[in-house]
């Protein structure tokens, strides 16, 4: 019966394995969580789900699953003859409760109301809304409708709390598919680290040599090891302003996090496209600028240049002198980017816009060509590819 739950979870793209499923059954066998649905919820979650990002999806599936069981229950209970219920009720009700029932208009009246409510409930359910969440507030909620629970007329619901844990959806914010969260960030960081750790030279490994020599009973055994920190130097150019700000913030954090892996890391900003000026502090962009010429002169050719921008603008802003939206530029952006690429052969452009749109926007196409096809998406994959490209000797 629980197999259904397993497959429902897998359909919701939650990676649940057989091992975990068996572990859950093992636990149930040992009586870890057999006596309440809340315990079962917590226990099954801890067995099957290994990542808080999946909690929200699990809650949904679990709610669905439990609802399914409840529906089954309703189908069965619909056929129970009224006499049976009445007898059962008379057996279970105390004198006081019976009086209360009388006060509410007698048993028949109540059964009638109950039936009406049941009809209503069915209609509502067919309408597609969830009713388990409200089960606690109605005196005739499905939860109250069993022999032990026929406390009709009581003010509060049988369960005391109306909303089930899994209906609260407390873990919504942790779901990875919802938004670009820390997960992508971390994966990207890992790619960057790989970039920084490779391409190393061999050097003498003191500890390894001593260790190997000792193991070798004193015969010298020289070990070489790869240098851990390499000499990768990075220049980052960010397009700031407007829609890019969010992406800039993310990529800035990304590269700062990887900062310790680089020998040098410098940031510069530009707006829309690279012209004759760059700046370091976005708040003082009009006063403290660095001419791009000087930028090219300052840094050695072995720096890797990574440009982050959406490259979405009017094509004239790239190809024509005076095309910039902000100032009069004597020379076209294309000229400037070519100068940069001439000096720094290792370069890549990261674009936060989805790659599918690139071919439709002329300015992106132009930039892609100017970059000699080295434009990559600002995604984990894209960063990986960009790094591979930057590592290649040119």
């Amino acid at each position, binding site marked *: 019966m629980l197999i259904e739950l397993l497959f429902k979870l897998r359909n919701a793209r939650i990676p649940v394995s057989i091992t975990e499923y068996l572990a859950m059954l093992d*636990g149930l066998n040992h009586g*870890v969580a057999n006596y309440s649905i809340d315990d079962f919820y917590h226990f099954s979650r*801890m067995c099957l789900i290994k990542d808080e990002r999946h909690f929200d999806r699990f809650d949904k599936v679990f709610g669905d699953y439990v609802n399914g069981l409840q529906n089954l229950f309703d189908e069965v209970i619909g056929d129970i003859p009224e006499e049976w219920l009445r007898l059962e009720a008379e057996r279970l009700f105390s004198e006081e409760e019976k009086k209360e029932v009388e006060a509410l208009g007698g048993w028949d009246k109540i059964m009638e109301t109950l039936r009406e409510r049941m009809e209503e409930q069915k209609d509502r359910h067919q309408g597609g809304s969830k009713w388990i969440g409200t089960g606690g507030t109605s005196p005739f909620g499905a939860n109250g409708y069993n022999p032990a629970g026929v406390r009709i007329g009581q003010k509060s619901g049988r369960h005391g709390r109306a909303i089930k844990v899994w209906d609260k959806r407390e873990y919504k914010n942790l779901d990875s598919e919802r938004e670009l969260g820390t997960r992508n960030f971390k994966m990207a960081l890992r790619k960057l680290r790989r970039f920084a750790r490779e391409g190393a030279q061999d050097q003498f490994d003191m500890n390894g040599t*001593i260790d190997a020599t000792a*193991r070798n009973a004193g015969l010298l055994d020289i070990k070489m090891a790869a240098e851990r920190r390499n000499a990768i130097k990075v220049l980052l150019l960010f397009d700031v302003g407007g829609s890019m700000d969010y992406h800039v913030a993310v990529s800035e954090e990304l590269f700062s996090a990887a900062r310790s892996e680089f020998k040098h890391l410098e940031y510069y900003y530009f707006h829309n496209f690279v012209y004759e000026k760059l700046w370091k502090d976005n708040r003082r962009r009009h006063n403290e600028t660095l001419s791009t010429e000087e930028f090219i002169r300052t840094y050695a050719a072995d720096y890797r240049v990574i440009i982050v921008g959406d490259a979405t603008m009017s094509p004239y802003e790239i190809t024509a002198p005076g095309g910039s939206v902000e100032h009069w530029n004597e020379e076209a952006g294309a000229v400037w980017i070519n100068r940069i690429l001439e000096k720094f052969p290792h370069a890549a452009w990261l674009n936060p816009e989805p790659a599918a749109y690139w071919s439709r926007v002329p300015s992106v196409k132009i930039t892609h060509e100017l970059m000699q096809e080295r434009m990559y998406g600002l995604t984990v994959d894209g960063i990986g590819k960009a790094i591979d490209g930057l590592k290649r000797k040119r």
Partner: protein
Amino acid sequence: MTKKFESTDNYIATEDLALAVNAAITLGRPLLIKGEPGTGKTQLAEEVARSLAAPLYRWHIKSTTKAQQGLYEYDAVSRLRDSQLGDEKVHDIANYIIKGKLWEAFEEEQLSVLLIDEIDKADIEFPNDLLLEIDKMEFHVYETRETVVAKHRPLVIITSNNEKELPDAFLRRCFFHYIKFPDAETMEKIVEVHFPSIKKDLLAAALNAFFAIREVQGIKKKPSTSELLDWLKLLLADEIPADALHADESGSIIPKLHGALLKNEQDVHLFERLVFLNKRKQ
């Protein structure tokens, strides 16, 4: 099963957390604990060990920790030195095997608790290197050709701060519990456990201020339970009356001694700016 873990006199465990710990004990599986910093992940292991009267082995992981160090280390350098000095010990390699935390826990005759703290700090391969050891609770010592098997499966509690993804194969062998930030009710219990003599009104005022700070948009590092407890300690030490904490109508007051709650310069600035804006509105 004889012993069960539940809230102790200085640690409040929610029902689901207690269930998780007990299930892990019953089934002898490791328990992976995640959650916001400061929600008592590491403390859990200590409290479990104490309430079950079980010995606790702490293995704190750093970025340089290797899985092998938890099992044993072969001290080759000492052996080399001893061989130069002609020490008799050198003939038995077992003299140079140093037991790791895992080995120590495996030797325990009764239930023990092994804490692997901040597993995410280690190298990416680290959890993979412990798969068999965690699963079968045994490992092989290559140098002496012996196999160490746990006499009594220890309760392994692993904490992670999410700095790295853990491999699937490793996760599959663990139970997982996410300690979520306590709600106001649980928080009250936690505080009561730590400061039984705290005045009701001061506590209520402090908790209000605390949750209000947590809700301020844009705060970089939200204050956590442990920070709240520190703050209360300061408030108590200074004997600050409860009404000093009550926000006026607009909620515009910087709580006294806020340094214990806000650990980030930018957050303090942000907070002060908000308060300033609020005051101007009046």
